[in-house]
C-alpha cells in the first residue's frame, strides 16, 4: 500500500504491507533510532508520537499512519532540544536501548502534562522499561525537561 504522511515534519511517501508495523516501516527508512524491544507494547523502546500522542510503534499497523503526523526520536531531538539536553545533563541512560523511547515519552509528557510532579512523571513513564539505571536518572531527566 502507498502511504503518505508527515515524518519528523516532512511529507513522506512509501510502500508498506497491510500488516506491516510502524516500527519496521520507520526503521526501513533508515531511522533506526526507534527500537523494537518486547514487540508487545510493554517495554516502550519503540515509542513514537503519532499526532503528538505517544504510541507503541510495534503494535501500530503502518496503514493507520496514512495522513498522520509521525515523530521519531530523530525528529523529536530537533523539536525538543531541551529534552535531549535534560537526558544528557542528568545522564538518564546507560546502555541506551530504551533511551529513544524514554525521550519520546518525555517529549509527549511536556506536551500533555507540562506541570507534572514526580508521582505523575513516574506514572506516565511506568510503561517505559529500563533494565540498567533503576530509573532515578530518567525521572530526574524528565523533571529537568519539564523545568526547562
Amino acid at each position, binding site marked *: 500500500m502507498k502511504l503518505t504522511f508527515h515524518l519528523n515534519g516532512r511529507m513522506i511517501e512509501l510502500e508498506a*504491507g497491510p500488516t*506491516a508495523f510502524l516500527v*519496521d516501516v520507520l*526503521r526501513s527508512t*533508515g*531511522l*533506526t*533510532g*526507534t*527500537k*523494537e*524491544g*518486547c*514487540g*508487545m507494547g*510493554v*517495554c516502550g*523502546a519503540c515509542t513514537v508520537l503519532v499526532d503528538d500522542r505517544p504510541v507503541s510503534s510495534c503494535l501500530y499497523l503502518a496503514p493507520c499512519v496514512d495522513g498522520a503526523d509521525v515523530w*521519531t*526520536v*530523530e525528529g523529536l*531531538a530537533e523539536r525538543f532540544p531541551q*529534552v*535531549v539536553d535534560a*537526558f*544528557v*545533563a542528568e*545522564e*538518564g*541512560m*546507560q*546502555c*541506551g*536501548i*530504551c*533511551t*529513544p523511547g524514554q*525521550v519520546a515519552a518525555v517529549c509527549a509528557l511536556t506536551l500533555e502534562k507540562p506541570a507534572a510532579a514526580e508521582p505523575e512523571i*513516574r*506514572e506516565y*513513564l*511506568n*510503561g*517505559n*522499561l*529500563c*533494565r*540498567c*539505571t*533503576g*530509573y*532515578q*536518572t*530518567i*525521572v530526574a531527566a524528565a523533571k529537568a525537561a519539564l523545568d526547562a
Partner: protein
Amino acid sequence: MAPRIDAVAKARGATRYAADTMLPGMCHAVLVRSPVKHAWIGGFDLTAARAVPGVIGVFTANDMPEITFGRRVKDIPILARGKVRFIGERVAAVVAETRAQAEEAALRVDVQYEELPPVLDATAALEPGAQAVHDSPWEYPGAVVTKADPVNTQSHVTSGDAAEANELLARSAHMVDKTYATPSGHQGYLEPQACVASVQDGTIQVWASDKSPYRVRDELAACLKLDPSDIVVHPVAIGGDFGGKGLIGETPLCVQLARLTGRPVKLAVRYSEDLSATSPRHSMALRVRAGCDRDGRLQVLRVDAVADGGAYAGFKPRVNVDLSGLGDAGSPYRIPAVHTDVRIAYTNSVPRGHMRAPAAPQTTFAVESALDELALKVGIAPVELRRRNLLRGGEPNIHGITWAQCRGQETLDAALGAASGQCPAPAGWLTGRGVGVYDRHTTRAARTSLRLAAEDDGGIRAEVAVPETGTGSHTVARRILAEGLGVPEDTVRVVHVPTDELPYDRGAGGSRVSVGLGAVAAAAVKAWADRGEQNAVTVEIDDDLGADVTSYCVQIADVAVDPATGEIRVLRIVSAVDVADILNPAAHSMQLDGGTAMGYGFACLEDLQIEDGQVWSGTLGEFKLPSTRDVPPLDTVLVTGGSGIAPLNIKAAGELTNVPTAAAIANAVAAATNVRVRSLPIRAETVWAALQHERTTTGGRV
C-alpha cells in the same frame, strides 16, 4: 565534569546497535525452532518453505559444519543435528529478502519429530537410570564430566570436607537445615540478540550484540575452520548485557548463512524468542545447613545445591563449568568449616547461562535467609548475628584469602545508620526490616589493548577494544586518559574499533572493565610519554594486578505487608557499599541503583516459569521487569576511603547491589509476618496463605 561520551548520540537515537546495521543487498534470516522438548529429527520437508516468494534458501544442520561450540564445554550445535533437546532449539533457518517473507516461510518448514521421553527435573535427571539428554556428554570438547558421573551431569563441584562439616553440624549448639528454591529469570536486556554477517573479498564481517568481540572472532574461526585474521568483528553498542550478551549464540549460524547465500544476512531474534530460548539464569534448589555455638558464632556452613542447566552447558565459561556464586557461599563471614556441593544437570529445557553475579543472588538469598532463621534459634537479632560473624581485617576468609582491607563491620554500621528512622507504612499493614550481606572480590586480571594517536586538530584519538555495554566504560577511559595525559577531557576522543585494529581484549563482564581500562590507560600514558617521534602508540596488557580486594554490600529492606491480601510493599532499600575511588560518580551510582532494582525484581517479580520443559512467561507481559513505579525508594550510602586495585585504586561495582536484595526483603517479610518464604519470587499469595494458616491454626496473631 563532562557528560558521558555516548549521551548525546543515545538521547538522539543515533547510536548504532547490531540490529541497526543495514548493508547493501542484505537479506533476513528467521529461525525455525523446535516445538517439542526431546526428539529425534526424522526428516525435513522444505519444499513449501522454499516456494514462498522472496525465499533465498532454507537450511538445516546438513548445511552447517559438523561441530559444536560453547564457552567451555563445546556442546551446542549451530543447528540441531539429529536430535532436539528443548522447546525453542534452532532446527532450521530461512533466509529471504524480507523478514516478513522469512517468517512466513519458517512456518512452512515441516520437521518430523520422533519424540523421546523428556528429562524435566534437575534432581531426577541426576539419578541412576535417568533418560540421557546427551548420549555421551563426556566426549564434548571441554567437558568436565566422565563416564562415571550420572549421565546428565554438566558439572559437579565441591569444596571443603563433608565429613568435617557434618561433624561440626552435629556438635553445633544451634543448627538450621532448610531448603530454598529460586526460579529461572531472563537477564532482561531490552535489546534482543542480533547479528549481521557479510562476506566481503574473502573476509567475514560481523556485527553482533556480543560484549566480547575478540572471543566471537576466535570462536567463529574455530567453528568455521577459518583463521581469526579472516574475520572482523565490528563495534556496535550493546543494548544491555547483565551476563546474557557473551554467548556467541546465533553468530556462527548467521555467518554460515552469509557464506551459503553469498549475501549479507541479518539474524535478529524477536524478544519472545529471546525470553524463551536464549540463556536465562539457572533455576536452583539449595539446601543450607548452618551451625553456630551458643553465642551465635558460626561453626559450619554446608550448602548442597542442584541447578538446572538446561539442554546445553556451553554458556558457562568457568574452567569447572560451575557458577562462582555457589562456591562463595558464606564468604562475608568467619566460618571455620564450609562445605559446598553443587551439581548442575542437563534437562530438556532452555540452556541456562550467566546473569549478573552468576549464582550469587540465589546463594545469598538462601544463606542469608538461613542465617536469620539461625538467629531466631540463638535468640539474638539478625543484625547481631552478622556483627558477631563478619570477617575482620587480617582474618582469612573461607577460601583462605586475607583481603587487603576488610570492611564488613563498617559497611553494616553505615547501612544501619542510613536506615535509621521509620518508613511510613499504610495503616493496618505489618511492618518489618531485613538485612542481607554480600561481598565480592574485584577481579585482578586485566587483558585488553588501547591505541593512542595524535589527531590533526591537536586532540588525541583513543582506540579501545572493549565494547560499551552501558556501564559508562568509554567515558571512564576518556577521563583516566585525560588525567594521565594532562589534557582536557574534551580533547580525548574514545573510539571503539574493529577487532582487526587492536590486539586481544577479553570483553566486558565479570565487573572487570574499569580495572582493565585503568591498567591499559596507565600503560598507554607511559608509552605516549616515551613515544619519541611516533604519532601513535599501541599498548597491550595481560596482567595480574595482584591485589586481593573485596567490597562489602549490606542492604536493609523495610517492608509493609497487607495482612488481608499478603501484598508486599517494599518501603525502602538502603544499600551500603564499600568503595575505593570512584571514576565516574554518576555511572557508579546508576550501576548501584540499577543493581538494586534488579535485585528487587529477583525478589518480588521475575519468574520465567519453566515448567514441564517449557517457558511459560514468554513475553514481557508475563515476565515482569520492575517498572518506574515498582522500584522502591532507594538510598545508597558509600563507605568511602577504601583501598582498591592499582593503579587507579578502584573496586568493582557492577555485581554488588543486585545480590543481597532478595534476602533482605525475604528477611523483612519474615520479620513483619513470621512467614518465612523460602522460594522466589516472594508472592503475595504465599504470604497470605501462610497468614491464613496461622489464623486458622492458632486463632491468629494478626
